[in-house]
C-alpha cells in the first residue's frame, strides 16, 4: 500500500513547445481511487504513463510512497497495469489463468495457490477456480483479468481507459465491479478516462486536466457543486452546464427581463480586464419552468426532448433576449433545461424558464476563474 505523489512532474515531447503535462502537483492518498479525466490530448494518459515509467519525466519527480521512482524501470515500480492483457487461455484452469505470471516469476506453488484463492474470494470466482474459462460469462472473464493484477499484490493499480473496448452493457457492469472491488481491496488506484460520467461514478476524487494543466482536484460532489473555473464547469456534468457572458451594470446582471444583483464579494472581484463582463453558468436542473410573463423568466423554443425515464431534458433555442449573446451548453448554442418527465412539452413549443435563486455560478470573464 502506498501514496502516489506527482511533484512538479513535467513531460515535454521532443519537437514540441507546449508540455504535454505541465508541472503536475498531485498527492494521492493510500488506498484512494483517483480518476484522471479530461478531453483527448489533455495529458491524462501521459500522466499515467509517467507514473508507470512508460514516459520520460523531463522535470520534477514522481514518488510511490517515500520512494522516488522517477528513474526506476517500469517493472521495478511495483505497479500493475490492470486489463493490459485480458486474453484468457482456453486450456488452463481459471486458477492458472490468474496465477501464471507468479509461476513465471518463480513464486512457490503453495503461495501462488494461496494468493489465487484469496483473490478468487474477493472476485466471487472461488467455485470456478478449477474450471476452464469457457465456463465463464463475459463479466466473470473480466474479473479473471482483474485477478491477474490482484495476485501480484502491487502497491498501485493503473487503469488506462479499461472500459473503452467493451460493449455498452459490459461497460456499465464492469464499471461498478471495478469501483466496489477497489474499495474492498483498498489498493491505491489511478484510473484514466475521457468520460466524466465514469469519473463521477467511480472516483473518490477526480482530477480534471486540460491542455497539460491540472484544473481542479476534488470529490465528485465538489467538482459538480463548486467548479473552480469555466473549463471544469463546462466539462463536469451531463448534460452540460449552460454558460454565457453577461454585462454587469451597477453591480447587477440582466438575465432576460430580470436583474440579478451580484453579491458584493463577487462584484468586488471583477477587474478592469473583465471589461464590465462576467461569465455566469447554471445547470439544467437550476432552471424552473414557469408561467409565461413571470418576472425574470426567458423563453426557450423546444428543439428536442431527451427522455431518460427518471428525468427529461429540453434542448432549446433562446427566444428572448437574456443579455448574453453566447449562452449555451457544451459546444452548442442550445440551452438545456431539466423538466418534469411526466409533463413534457412538444417539439416546437415555447416554454418560459427562470433560474432558481442562488443556483448561479460566477466566473471571471477574463481568466475564467471562479468568483463565488
Amino acid at each position, binding site marked *: 500500500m502506498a501514496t502516489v505523489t506527482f511533484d512538479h512532474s513535467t513531460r515535454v515531447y521532443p519537437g514540441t513547445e507546449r508540455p504535454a503535462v505541465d508541472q503536475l502537483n498531485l498527492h494521492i492518498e493510500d488506498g484512494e481511487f483517483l480518476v484522471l479525466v479530461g478531453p483527448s490530448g489533455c495529458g491524462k494518459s501521459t500522466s499515467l504513463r509517467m507514473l508507470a515509467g512508460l514516459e*520520460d519525466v523531463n522535470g520534477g519527480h514522481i514518488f510511490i510512497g517515500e520512494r522516488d521512482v522517477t528513474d526506476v*524501470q517500469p*517493472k521495478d515500480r511495483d505497479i500493475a497495469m490492470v486489463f*493490459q492483457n485480458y486474453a484468457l*487461455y482456453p486450456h488452463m*484452469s481459471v486458477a492458472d489463468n490468474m496465477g501464471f505470471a507468479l509461476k*513465471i516469476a518463480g513464486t512457490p506453488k503453495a503461495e501462488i495457490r494461496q494468493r489465487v484463492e484469496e483473490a478468487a474470494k474477493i472476485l466471487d470466482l472461488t467455485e470456478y477456480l478449477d474450471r476452464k474459462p*469457457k465456463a465463464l460469462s463475459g463479466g466473470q472473464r473480466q474479473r479473471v483479468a482483474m485477478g491477474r493484477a490482484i495476485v501480484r499484490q502491487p502497491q498501485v493499480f493503473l487503469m488506462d481507459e479499461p472500459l473503452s*473496448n467493451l*460493449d455498452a452493457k459490459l461497460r456499465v457492469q464492469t464499471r461498478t465491479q471495478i469501483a466496489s472491488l477497489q474499495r474492498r481491496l483498498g489498493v491505491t488506484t489511478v484510473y484514466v478516462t475521457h468520460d466524466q460520467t465514469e469519473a463521477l461514478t467511480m472516483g473518490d476524487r477526480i482530477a480534471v486536466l486540460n491542455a497539460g494543466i491540472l484544473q481542479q482536484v476534488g470529490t465528485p460532489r465538489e467538482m459538480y457543486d463548486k467548479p473552480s473555473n469555466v473549463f471544469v464547469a463546462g466539462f463536469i456534468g451531463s448534460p452540460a452546464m449552460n454558460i454565457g457572458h453577461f454585462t454587469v451594470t451597477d453591480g447587477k446582471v440582466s438575465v432576460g427581463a430580470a436583474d440579478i444583483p451580484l453579491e458584493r464579494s463577487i462584484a468586488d472581484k471583477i477587474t478592469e480586464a473583465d471589461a464590465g463582463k462576467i461569465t455566469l453558468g447554471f445547470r439544467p436542473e437550476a432552471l424552473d419552468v414557469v408561467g409565461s410573463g413571470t418576472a425574470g423568466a426567458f423563453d426557450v423554443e423546444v428543439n428536442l426532448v431527451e427522455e431518460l425515464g427518471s428525468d427529461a431534458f429540453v434542448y432549446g433555442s433562446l427566444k428572448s433576449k437574456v443579455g448574453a449573446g453566447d449562452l449555451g451548453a457544451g459546444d452548442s448554442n442550445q440551452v438545456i433545461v431539466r423538466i418534469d418527465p411526466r409533463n413534457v412539452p412538444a417539439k416546437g413549443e415555447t416554454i418560459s424558464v427562470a433560474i432558481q435563486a442562488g443556483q448561479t455560478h460566477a466566473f471571471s470573464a477574463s481568466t475564467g476563474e471562479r468568483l463565488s
Partner: protein
Amino acid sequence: MTTQNLQITAAAPDPALLDLPWEVPLEDWPAEVLAALPRGISRHVVRFVRMSGRVIAIKEIGESVAYREYELLRQLRRLDVPSVVPVGVITGRRSPDGEHLEAVLVTEHLQFSLPYRALFSQALRPDTATRLIDALAVLLVRLHLAGFYWGDVSLSNTLFRRDADRFSAYLVDAETGDLHRALSPKQRAYDLDLARTNIIGELMDLAAGELLDEETDEISIGDALVSRYSELWNALTFAEAFQADERWRVAARIDQLNNLGFDVGELEITTDIDGTSVRIQPKVVDAGHHSRRLLRLTGLDVQENQARRMLNDLDSFRAASDRQGDEEEFVAHDWLRLVFEPTISAVPRDLRRKLEPAQLFHEILDHRWFVSEQARRDVPMVEATHSYVENVLRHRPDEKAILGLAPGESPIEGEDELGGQGAGDELFG
C-alpha cells in the same frame, strides 16, 4: 422500425461490403456467409467472411477504438511494417428493432498465414518454437525502430508466414498500440517484458492442452525472445569506434547489417578533432534488403528469406552458365524465364495454390538437395519438381487460408482433434 444509417470508412470501399448482414450481431451471423470462426477465447467477437474472392476478418469493437486501430494499421502500412491490411470501419449499425450494434473493424485476411496454434498442432520440426520466436523478435525490432509501442505483444496477436526455412511474423492486433516519434529504452524494455510474459503464458496454455512437447521449457523460450531481440537491436543500433586507418570497418558494418536482412538508410559518421578515430552508428535501417534486391532484379515480390534463397539460386545459375561478366539484370531475367517460371508451372495447377510460389520454389530446391544426395547424382530441376509434387506436396494441407474452425464446429472441444487444417480445406478445396 429504425433503419440503419451505416457509415463506411475505407480507403477503397468494396461495394460487396454492403451485402453483408450488418443489422445482425456478428455473433449470430448465418453460417452461409462465414468462412470460419476464430479459435480460442477472444475478448471480441471475430468472424472470417468470404467477400469478392478473398477472406476478410471482422471484429466487433467500440467505435473510437475501431477508428484508432484502423488509423494505426494504415500508418504501419505506410511505415512498411509487416501487418494486416485494414479494409475499413463500419459504424451506425442497428438491428431491425432499433437496437444499437457495436462498430466493426474490417481487415483483410493475410493469405498463406498460419496462426501459432495451427503450427504447434501440426507435426512440425522440433525447433518450430525457436523459429517463431526469431520471427517475432525481428517483427518487434522493426516495430520499435518505427516508434511503435505494441502494448500486447503475443503469439496470438501475430500471424506467421513460411519464409523459406524460417517464418516471418505479421502484426494482427494493434488495439493497444501507440505510435511515437521514437521509443525510450524504458518503453522498449516494458514491451519486451510483456511479450515474454504473454508468450510463456501462451506456451503454458498449449502445454495444458497437451499440444506442446513435454520436453519444452516454456520459460526458456520466453527468455530466448528477450535475448534474440536484444542481439538484433544491438547489432542494428550500436555505435562503434575505431582508428581512422581501419575504414574498412564501415563497409564491414554495412555488410553485417545486409546479412541480417537490413539496409542502412542513414549512417552517422563522426570523427574526433584530430581525425585519428572514427565513430559510426546506423541511424536509419530498413528491413527487406534481399527482398528489395530480388524485386529490383526480377519483379518478384516475396519475403526476405525466400528472396535470400532465390538470390542464392540466381548466383548458382550465373556460375553454372558462366555469365559472371554479364549484367546482373540480364542474368536475372533469364533465370526467371528458364528456372523459376518453368519450375512453378511444372506443378499441377490444383496443387500449386497450397503454398505461395516462392515457398514452393524454396521447398523444391530443398527437395532437390535431398534427392540428389540420396541418388548420389545431381538431380535436374524437372525431375526434382516431379518427385516433390508426388512425394511431398500432394500430402500437404492447403495453407492458403487456414483460419480457425468451420462454422458449426465447437471452438474449444474440437480443438485438440482438429489439427492444423482449420477450415481452409473444406472451404477452399
